[in-house]
């Protein structure tokens, strides 16, 4: 009998169960219902791991325990199990949070609508509305995870590194798929209300059954309801008590069903949607493309600037000196000679400048001999002592290789110019799947990804290859610049 009751009340999970089945009462002593679900527990994984073994394979002691259990004990333990309590409490929590969040969302949506026509402000308010509901969604996902439902967070906008405030707002504004989050808050409040209503009615009926079974001789007042007087006979009393017990016994299943309804709405609206994911991917890709164009443009401008400011004046001055020498040649040979000498040293200096400039545009040795060789030459010209460690399983493709090179070049330039470091280290490692570039120095820190800065340009270049560039440089140092670039398999 005990075995039967147990399976009827506890063991039979409904088909296609979403919730992890109730723990076996035999194990209940070490299961507090909540703590057993580790964070991030996928419901399928949870269900699989907690699937009950066939009774035949149960350990002997456990089986003995199971047969000794009395129906009432099982009932009490089931109804009072942590999991059921949590499910019940959730109805209240969801209703409370729902009321607060729905109010906040409604206000935010109202503001979004009224400010939509104000240029600038509309974007700001819309972005803040989405941010707020994204936070609310993370609270609700956390709540549902405690109940055993893991919902992945949808992709949130990732503004490019060094983006201005306005660009950040705009990237939220473009994330149209996120409007499911405020929608959830608006739908959830009536849903939570309905679920709480069902739960309360259920217990209300159980209580009425018990009151009627007690056979009150005078009317009993239950929150405004007058019950009785009634005088049930023995059969009716038994029936009422049984009905009340059945109602209480069925509560865990009902509570789970209500939680599933709650989770269903969450899963539909709080999780990643396919359109959302695709839209996020498209937006990420077009941002990466824009960054690639931008960084190429910045690079072109830098080259033009270097040529214009460095090389052109030198050549013009060289031509001028030669021109002056020529016009003096006949009347002042000595003066002409000193001018030719000057022009000669200028020509040599110009050749050196040109060599450095060309190396800065693209070092040929990088193509021919790879990163290690190119970096040796780079750090050789650096006044700070820089150690280089390159460990690559295979040679990255040219785009990744040269990006890694420029990350190091820019970082080393910054070390020389700004850090007042005494040593620095460059570490490049690659396992064929990821190329990792790490530049550290012992300088005074304070490096930042500023809009228009060299590092930001490089971050854009790295991002255009789906990589990330991070710069940690607290005031006082040390500075650590790391680029991680995924490589095609």
């Amino acid at each position: 009998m005990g075995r039967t009751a147990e399976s009827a009340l506890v063991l039979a999970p409904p088909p296609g169960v979403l919730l992890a089945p109730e723990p076996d009462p035999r194990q209940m002593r070490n299961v507090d219902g909540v703590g057993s679900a580790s964070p991030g527990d996928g419901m399928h994984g949870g269900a699989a791991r907690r699937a009950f073994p066939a009774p035949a394979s149960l350990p002997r002691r456990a089986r003995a325990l199971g047969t000794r259990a009395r129906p009432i004990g099982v009932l009490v333990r089931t109804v009072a199990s942590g999991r059921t309590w949590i499910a019940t409490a959730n109805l209240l929590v969801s209703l409370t949070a729902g009321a607060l969040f729905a109010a906040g969302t409604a206000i935010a949506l109202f503001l979004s609508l009224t400010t939509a026509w104000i240029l600038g402000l509309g974007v700001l308010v819309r972005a803040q509305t989405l941010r707020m509901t994204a936070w609310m969604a993370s609270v609700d996902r956390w709540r549902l995870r405690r109940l055993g439902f893991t919902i992945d967070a949808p992709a949130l906008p990732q503004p490019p590194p060094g983006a201005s405030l306005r660009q950040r707002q705009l990237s939220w504004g473009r994330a149209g798929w996120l409007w499911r989050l405020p929608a959830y808050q608006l739908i959830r409040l009536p849903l939570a209300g309905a679920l709480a209503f069902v739960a309360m009615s259920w217990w209300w009926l159980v209580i009425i059954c018990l009151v009627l079974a007690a056979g009150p001789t005078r009317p009993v007042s239950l929150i405004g309801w007058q019950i009785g007087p009634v005088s049930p006979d023995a059969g009716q009393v038994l029936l009422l008590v049984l009905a009340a017990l059945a109602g209480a016994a069925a509560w865990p299943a009902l509570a789970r069903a209500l939680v599933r309804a709650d989770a269903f709405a969450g899963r539909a609206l709080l999780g990643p949607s396919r359109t959302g994911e695709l839209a996020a991917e498209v937006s990420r890709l077009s941002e990466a493309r824009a960054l690639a164009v931008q960084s190429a443009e910045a690079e072109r401008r830098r080259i033009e600037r270097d040529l214009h400011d460095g090389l052109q004046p030198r050549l013009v001055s060289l031509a001028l000196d030669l021109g002056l020498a020529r016009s003096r040649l006949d009347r002042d040979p000595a003066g002409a000679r000193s001018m030719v000498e000057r022009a000669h040293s200028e020509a040599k200096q110009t050749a050196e400048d040109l060599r450095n400039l060309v190396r800065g545009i693209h070092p040929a040795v990088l193509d021919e001999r790879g990163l290690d060789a190119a970096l040796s030459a780079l750090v050789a010209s650096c006044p700070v002592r820089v150690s280089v460690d390159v460990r690559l399983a295979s040679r990255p493709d040219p785009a990744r290789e040269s990006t890694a090179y420029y990350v190091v070049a820019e970082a080393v330039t910054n070390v020389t110019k700004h850090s007042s470091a005494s040593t620095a280290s460059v570490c490049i490692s690659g396992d064929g799947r990821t190329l990792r570039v790490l530049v550290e120095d012992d300088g005074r820190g304070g490096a930042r990804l500023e809009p228009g800065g060299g590092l930001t340009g490089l971050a854009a270049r790295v991002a255009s290859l789906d990589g990330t560039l991070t710069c940690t440089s607290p005031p006082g140092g040390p500075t650590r610049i790391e680029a991680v670039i995924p490589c095609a398999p």
Partner: protein
Amino acid sequence: MRAVIADDSVLLREGITRLLGEGGVAVSAAVGDAAALLAAIAEHRPDLAIIDVRMPPGHRDEGLRAAIEIRRRWPDVALLVLSQFVEERYATELLSGESRSVGYLLKDRIADVDEFIEAVQRVADGGTVIDPEVVRQLLARTHQADPLSRLTRREREVLSLMAEGRSNTSIARSISVSMGAVEKHVASIFAKLDLAPDDEQRQRRVMAVLRYLNS
């Protein structure tokens, strides 16, 4: 004659100073940006300012804007604007007010010492000097292509030299023909392009030609 030089390259400031010394022009001040240039002009009131277009802080067209400002505030200062790239658009902006004592040359021209000094003298004397490169750009994109096609090759050559701001004497020397021949070409060009008859005021002639090419 006294001049003020503005160029952000120290090397070129020194070079131009030496070059002007060669031509007997004293350099009152050599500065590196537009603000310092305006201050130097106010202080020294030179006869001539030689200005680089691209200067700090923006490295854009600060020199050009400073030149226009100088023309507005001190109209008697001759202006010679140098640039590493010449743009007909900049020339048009520079000449839109008054073309007297204005020059616009590619920076490379300073290497041809004698010609450069001659250009400096011409600008200081109230003439106009336009870089052949600008004239080439104007000829290439002019909307008046049809009348221009009526010119002979030699006449086009003379037109270009006129647009550069050269005198008939200078044109005659440049293409090795007699003064009389140049005068004949000029008259023929003015007739073919329906311009008012040649004016001996050289800078007005330049303006007429430039306006024609630019229209």
